[in-house]
């Protein structure tokens, strides 16, 4: 498969409408040369996974500020598994306490979580390192 650019779906699941972080990240990734699809608001995990597969992305980046992270990340992972799309990486950010971050990562529900204070530079680096591009 020929691919020269990393493809990312930036998603806002659930009912929360706070999209400042998601949009800043989306723009930073676009500025860093990635192809970014922004899902828009109020997406269900099902809708996000469907879009991710349809758009053939390398990574889903999810922003959760509503406290529902312990439900949403596992659900997305579950759906990716069901649809044989486990090669799509999952990362995210939002208002997520330290111990929940540890729990989610340890249980394999998400690859990485970036909380308020993380820089766009950090996130771009992480993505570039983790996403393998095939010649």
């Amino acid at each position: 498969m020929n691919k020269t650019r990393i493809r990312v779906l930036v998603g806002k699941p659930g009912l929360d409408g706070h999209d400042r972080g998601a949009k800043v990240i989306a723009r930073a990734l676009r500025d860093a040369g990635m192809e970014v699809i922004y899902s828009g608001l109020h997406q269900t995990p099902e809708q996000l996974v469907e879009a991710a597969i349809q758009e053939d992305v390398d990574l889903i980046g999810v922003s959760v500020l509503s406290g529902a992270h312990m439900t949403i990340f596992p659900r997305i992972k579950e759906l990716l598994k069901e649809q044989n799309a486990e090669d799509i990486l999952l990362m995210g950010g939002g208002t997520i306490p330290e111990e929940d971050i540890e729990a989610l990562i340890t249980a394999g529900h998400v690859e990485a979580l970036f909380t308020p204070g993380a820089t766009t530079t950090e996130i771009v680096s992480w993505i570039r390192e983790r996403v393998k591009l095939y010649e």
Partner: protein
Amino acid sequence: MSNNFLSWKANYDTLKERKGPFFTVSSVPIDPLYAPGHTVDIDYQRDLGNPGEYPYTRGVQANMYRGRLWTMRMFAGFATATESNERYKYLLSQGQTGLSVAFDMPTIMGYDSDHPRAYGEVGRVGVAIDSLQDMETLFQDIPLDKVSTSMTINAPASILWAMYIVAAEKQGVPANKLTGTIQNDILKEYIAQKSWIFPPDPSMRLITDIFKFSKDNVPKWNTISISGYHIREAGSTALQELAFTLADGFAYVEAGIKAGLDVDDFAPRLSFFFNSHTDFFEEIAKLRAARRIWARHMKGKYGAKNEKSLLLRFHTQTAGCSLTGPQMENNIVRTAYQAMAAVLGGTQSLHTNSMDEVLALPSEKSVQIALRTQQVLAYETGVTNTIDPLAGSYFVETLTNQMEEGAEEYFRKIDELGGVLGAIRENFFQQEIADAAYRYQKEIESNDRIIVGINGFVNEKKDDKMELLKIDPEVERAQVRKLIALKQSRDNIRVQTTLTDLKEAAKGSDNLIPKIMDSVRAYATEGEIIAVLKDVFGEYREQAVF
């Protein structure tokens, strides 16, 4: 500028200057010194006025805090009505002087707690209110003729307001005694907060129905809280917050007039809601400019005759987006400075954030500190001893003027795009906000803007663990069980009849508030009422930009 100033400046220019840049958040360059030459064109009567006198730059009341302190009104709500009722009683016992309800995302978006979309979200960012039963529990033992309550609810505002009015009815308190506010500001939802349900036209109809119903039935109620807070939180500059909020305000005035009301019938009950961010003087200038701009437009453009129609009364909340995760205790300090700016800006009502709100809803300990912040400000600092103490400051008056000029420029741009609704369709506000948010983040990442604990004075050692408020997942299950029981025990025929009546009325142009109240009295749920309205009004879809 005087020769005296110019010679000072010549000397200043030879001196070393520390690393800048020296700009407000709105990118207004700040001079090292402001002097009489800066404010020589200001006319006291025309541009400032005494407090309580046109154009109200110095305050909306003649006596301001010498008469009465601002209302200490802490935004609160989590889990179910029972837990939130306890928190309200706690806050009242700790000296807060007004109530403010935070609802959960399902309630905000018009879903009942048992809806599939509500899964995982019940009670997490606010209190779950599904029906009148929950509203009654929320205010159990809180006499609604003795408190004023602000409810942060927008698309479903008519329903939650109806629930509050009926809950009060059941306490024996008539609607004409009720004081409080509903946020009810749909325009800023499309622009910034994004908790919309219906498209703009039916949403504006609901809002003007509320204006009309309030005039004759709930006359002491603030029917709307025209908000800049969320616009700012989404990333706008102070100037954009000011301009976009007031533009929304003018749009509501025009909507009320178009719906057949005389401006003085409803304008006295319009209120506002601003952010208080960390650039101290810019925030004060913003608030003073807001009062002056509103008064000038209401008198000049809209011909308001009642003095109350000219008054920009507002609530303020300190900036959530300025708080940091690392070294969370520093947030207490940020909140204190922001609270002081709000008070020096003449706010009528104030919420101060808790230090742990970066990661969770406030713990009891954190919210006490946040409330004490206001009390120290009110009783220990002396800033309330005189009215609008910064008036006449060369710097503050210059900034206030610059804010007003900048806002007027934005009003022209918005008019060119066909007003607020036209500008929303063009994604004008949304793009301005996204650009400003990106710029702010880049300033931080390039160290042009230092945030303590983030890119300056960072601790090597990890922070001590903080006890955060946790919402037990059992909350959701309990709320769903309660809802199921309610649906079984109520008169379902009556519910269906009221909903059918409401649907018919929604298709026409009758005021919907009485019909919504009928459904509420029958214990129809919020979700059921919204579903009926969605059927008639449709749903809004945004074309997202980043």
